[in-house]
């Protein structure tokens, strides 16, 4: 299995009136071709910023991005336009991400036009038809406008638009979070089918741990701009190592009355990402925190094959 994307020491800081906001702070990971990396974490921990920075929708502060064997850390506009064909994004709110004044067929054909993919309007028409069929949109919606569609269909339009240029890689930012569960399942199935058929690679951002477990091959857990754990999904759920991951997994309410599990309740709230203190970002809420945790940030280390964790005490805690 070959690596499609490799990210090294990626940082994205924002200047704010209160100081430097460390939205993504020294994150490294890689994704294999055809696989899905799920990214989970609390609101504001940097998931969307990570996804956007990786595909150059936001300029990075520093770090290295290698895509399909090529270093794309620093690219000019021309190269960026070329990259856009291969790297696409699907957004959470299909409504605000679709232009309300464009019809469905115009929205889907826009990228095809920008990149002059089709020789004539007949070819363009048949490409749009094929894309609508691929995502399960009835052709009678060709001339409809986004507000006339329900949330599930709008998300299908967003997916069709992302697929138009036949990309290799898609960042999916909470693509089903705004949908009802019965509709959510339809869209998740569609995305899995498309991935299989087209060999797509996904970053799948969500705060829903049941969804991420269903859709991902590997899962990474973020906390305040840091990636604190990354592992194959089964291993992560069976054997979480980071104290934050453990609390997170124990807090998921399950739709069953037979699985009462021991809940780890965290104290306090997520702290501010503005000018963060040195040391482990989780220290303020961690019951295992020691002095060294507040002095320097723990590195992300491989604890078991493919299982990475950033915690000084993970090994010791795992041994009980």
């Amino acid at each position, binding site marked *: 299995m070959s690596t499609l994307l490799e990210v090294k020491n990626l940082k994205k800081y924002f200047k704010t009136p209160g100081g430097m906001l460390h939205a993504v702070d020294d994150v490294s990971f890689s994704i294999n071709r055809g696989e899905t990396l799920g990214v989970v974490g609390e609101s504001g921990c940097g998931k969307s910023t990570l996804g956007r920075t990786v595909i150059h929708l936001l300029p990075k502060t520093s770090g290295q991005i290698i895509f399909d064997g090529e270093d794309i850390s620093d690219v000019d506009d021309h190269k960026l336009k070329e990259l856009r064909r291969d790297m696409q994004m699907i957004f959470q709110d299909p409504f605000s991400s679709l232009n309300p004044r464009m019809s469905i067929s115009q929205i889907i054909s826009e990228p095809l036009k920008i990149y002059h993919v089709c020789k004539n309007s007949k070819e363009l028409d048949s490409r749009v038809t094929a894309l609508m069929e691929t995502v399960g949109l009835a052709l009678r919606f060709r001339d409809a406008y986004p507000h006339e569609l*329900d949330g599930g269909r709008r998300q299908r339009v967003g997916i069709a638009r992302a697929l138009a240029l036949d990309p290799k890689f898609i960042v999916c930012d909470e693509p089903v979070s705004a949908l009802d569960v019965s509709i959510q*399942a339809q869209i998740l*199935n569609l995305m899995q089918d498309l991935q299989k058929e087209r060999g797509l690679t996904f970053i799948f951002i969500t705060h829903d741990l049941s969804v991420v477990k269903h859709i991902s091959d590997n899962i990474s857990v973020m906390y305040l701009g840091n990636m604190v754990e990354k592992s194959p999904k089964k291993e992560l759920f069976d054997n979480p190592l980071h104290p934050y991951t453990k609390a997170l997994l124990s*807090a998921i*309410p*399950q739709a*069953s009355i037979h699985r009462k599990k021991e809940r780890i*309740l965290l104290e306090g*709230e997520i702290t501010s990402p503005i000018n963060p203190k040195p040391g482990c970002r989780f220290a303020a809420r961690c019951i295992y925190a020691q002095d060294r945790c507040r002095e320097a940030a723990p590195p992300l280390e491989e604890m078991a094959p493919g299982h990475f964790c950033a915690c000084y005490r993970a090994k010791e805690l795992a041994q009980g």
Partner: protein
Amino acid sequence: MSDKLLEIKNLSIHYFADKTVFKAVNGVNLSLERGQTVGLVGETGAGKTTTALGVMGLIPSPPGKVVSGEILFEGKDLLKMSASEMRKVRGKKISMIFQDPMTALNPVLTVGDQITEVIKLHEKCSSLEAAAKAKEMLEMVGIPAERFSEYPHQFSGGMKQRVVISIALACRPEVIIADEPTTALDVTIQAQVLELMTKLKKEIQTSMILITHDLGVVAEICDKVAIMYAGEIIEFGDLEAIYDNTAHPYTIRLFGAIPDLEKDVDRLEPIMGLMPDPSNLAPGCRFCPRCANRMPICETTPPPEVEVTPGHMVKCHLYKEGGLA
């Protein structure tokens, strides 16, 4: 004597816009006993919020109108009360927690003043006494009293929702209606808030209707569950009935559509079709257009409420009193 504290009978609420009627709530029966927590579960547009607003006497009118029904609270019909009588019930005896904490908080008042105001409104006490009580309430929901004079924007989402909860609890109401109180929160914060609500509910002996679309949250804190679809309660029962002896085809499919943490499946089983349009509901069973079990009778005749086992109510032609039809 029945312990029924709140009893909703045959409640229908419609919204009238131009020439269209949106039938948001259709013949809902639901009762809440003292000390109980009932979960009201359904997807977007099922009519959960409208039902809650109906109980609170807060249906926006126009366009909304209660077209039939009774809402008995301590034996009296809330729908027959005058506006001033209703104001005494609202907040004091029945209070509501809204999904978005910001809509419930005033951005230009400190959180402390907002809690104090509610206490003064409902209890005869001096401003000083009310402020002292408000500080107690803040501490009770886990916010240090020193933060009394801060404004809502200085608080995180979870803290704001705790402030809203403390306002709802300030007058020790008999009933709390919580409309998706944790939907906007992260799971670790959700766990804190749910734990807090359960604890406070015990302490002040409140009953609760918990509105949610999350069957996981319900499993954790509810005693009874009502499943709502297209403005109707299509299944009702205790946790065992709903989770282990699920009867209604919609409820069964709803469980099937949620990814299960303990079971790995390659594909989910979505419910085909779309959410029903409340201005154009199917004439017979409302779920009929999406139901894999539908029969000819389902298309023409609304199924009656039947009790399949004591306390387990289902609205579906597959069942008759006492079990399968």
